[in-house]
């Protein structure tokens, strides 16, 4: 019984930690796709960029880890403003297929650019000592970095939720997404609003890529390789919701970990089977709004 209890605690912890990893690398997409309704499949490219900013900032310029994280957010957000003004904004009114084709094209460009700039090998993440090793809680050891990830993700979801649900900016975004023409006619500068929101989503993607880099390695094929996870989290969570992806990431993280721990033979495809059944049950996702 004791053994079972102990493994239950392990699975719960690792499941939540994995869920948080899924969440931090997908949260940016839940803003651009979930909130703005733009099918941004190139999300992973922004996350990868964040990862490269982090690893370069630490290894080449000797920045501390928290500073490098902040830089990943700022640099990716700033770069995305240019992209948004030049490229993305032209496709806001385009159909989903155009958006998909355009952003897939962007992935190819990003992969090739990363390969030329950084080479094919993965980049090491130099963690500060306080995030290495284990933290002992009630006689059990937990990996320090994963504890840190859980805390940061919790803070991120709280801040996002507060921003979107409780601030004027959030209300304007929600209004502009629901009915852009109406929002414009009451004097909201939707163009600037969308640019800022897009920058926030991309910045979060960069931050997520940087935060997750220790566990999900940064190398040029990143945007393609992890695309299924971003999409699963947002689709299962439901478009137009912020709590949705969070709940979905947790649910998938915990159940995937549990399955891999107790039934490792089925570990490979559990996450996909779960996604299929969840979407059959609720086609709009857990917290999705039917549009």
């Amino acid at each position, binding site marked *: 019984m004791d053994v079972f209890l102990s493994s239950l605690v392990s699975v719960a912890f690792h499941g939540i930690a994995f869920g948080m990893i899924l969440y931090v690398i997908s949260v940016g997409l839940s803003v651009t796709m979930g909130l703005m309704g733009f099918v941004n499949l190139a999300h992973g490219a922004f996350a990868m960029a964040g990862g490269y900013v982090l690893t370069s900032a630490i290894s080449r310029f000797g920045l501390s880890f928290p500073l490098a994280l902040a830089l990943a957010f700022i640099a990716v957000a700033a770069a995305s403003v240019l992209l948004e003004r030049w490229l993305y904004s032209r496709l806001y009114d385009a159909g989903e297929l155009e958006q998909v084709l355009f952003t897939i094209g962007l992935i190819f460009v990003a992969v090739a650019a990363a390969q030329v700039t950084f080479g094919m090998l993965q980049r090491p993440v130099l963690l500060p000592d306080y995030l290495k090793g284990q933290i002992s809680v009630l006689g059990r050891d937990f*990996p320090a970095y*994963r504890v840190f990830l859980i805390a940061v993700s919790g803070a991120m979801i709280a801040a996002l939720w507060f921003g979107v649900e409780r601030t004027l900016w959030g209300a304007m975004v929600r209004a502009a997404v629901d009915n852009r023409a109406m929002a414009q006619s009451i004097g909201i500068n939707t163009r600037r609003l969308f640019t800022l929101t897009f920058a926030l989503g991309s910045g979060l993607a960069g931050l997520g890529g940087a935060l997750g880099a220790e*566990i999900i390695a940064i190398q040029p094929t990143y945007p393609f390789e992890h695309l299924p996870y971003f999409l699963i989290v947002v689709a299962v969570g439901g478009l137009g919701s912020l709590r949705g992806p969070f709940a979905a990431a947790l649910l998938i993280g915990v159940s995937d970990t549990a399955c891999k721990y107790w039934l490792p033979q089925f570990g490979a495809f559990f996450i996909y089977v779960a996604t299929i059944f969840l979407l059959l049950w609720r086609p709009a996702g857990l917290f999705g709004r039917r549009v």
Partner: protein
Amino acid sequence: MRITRRKFLPKVAVSAERQEQPQMGAKHAATSLLLGAVLLCAGPLAAQTVKVGFMSTFSGPGAAQGDQLDKGAKLYLKLNGGKLPQGVKVDVISRDDTGANPDVAKRIAQELIVRDKVQLLTGFVWTPNAAAIAPLTAEAKVPYISMNAAGVNIVNMSPYMARVSFTLWQSVYPLGQWAAKKFKRAYTAVSDFAPGHESEEAFIKGFKDGGGTIIDSVRIPLANPDFVPYIQRVKDAKPDVLFAFNPAGKQATAMMKAYADLGLDKAGIKYIGPGDLTTDEELQGMGDAAIGVMTVHHYSAAADRPANKAFVAAYKKEYGEKLNPGFMAVGAWDAMDLVFHVIRAQNGKLNPDKTMELIKQYKNPNSPRGPIAIDPETRDIIQNEYLREVRKVGGQLANVEIETVATQLKDPWKEFNKKK
């Protein structure tokens, strides 16, 4: 005589060959003879060019590995490309197989054989690619030397295929035997793909032959972002040693990080595997999680043999101080040495069967990895296997060789599965 045709009248020769397709039959020889006789008195002897087809991965996700082959081969050509008999030249034609992609591999091999008229083929990181061209090498009688593709059965697929790289059995079976002397209970965790299965089988046989017990085995999907659940399971099963095999790079790193994160080292569980886990080129990117991992392999950039020191120094001079050659670069280097050996021995006039005889007799006491030879029976590599541990040497991670666990070892799988 065919040679004279080639150098004196390439255009006529090409059109004559085009009609005949790849088979080099009697008719072909007769045509060449005739052309040769006519043209023999036409002028002084020009250069004798041997065309070699080199197939590697230059694009796509596998480009990092393909680049290793390219760098090893190019370095050899640069340093030793001139060591040829008078009048003989080697023309290496490179083609991109775009990754583990048998269809493309077959197409480019066919183009190299039919259109470019190569007399030798070499290259390939990936086993499926080498397997795909096996029938071609036999039909066209164009020998192929594997620089890396390590699937155990490759050389059995055509009498015109040989290998200078390695097999997983070669490193993992002696690792299993060595581990059985130190540890009693082992847990195996491998990626769920062909090399993973092969190494699992080899380790279990080696470990059991040495008297050890396997307490559990798990196969982990290739697309797996988080290894923690699997490793937690290993930790709770309390083995003495964990045998692991994943593709080098991010997968192997992620698993070692999970091992370090969960504190399995403190729980007294040793992490071992074939040298593919801690390849010299990836090692710096893996970080401190790799320290203490023990592997068995045929090559380490940190080895202190003089031939290796010279090789590593030349490699760094060519490609930059930070870059270590990995086992794939060495495979390419040795394959090129074998290519040049058969060309020199035949004075540039290559005959496929003579070439295969020469390949079977090949011995090199001074490869960067130590003495190597080709097994005349199987056309596979014979080499030493070294036990290594990842340590920090002068601020850099390195695979430090500790002892030689197998000397001049033939592929164990072929020894166990010999036809009686």
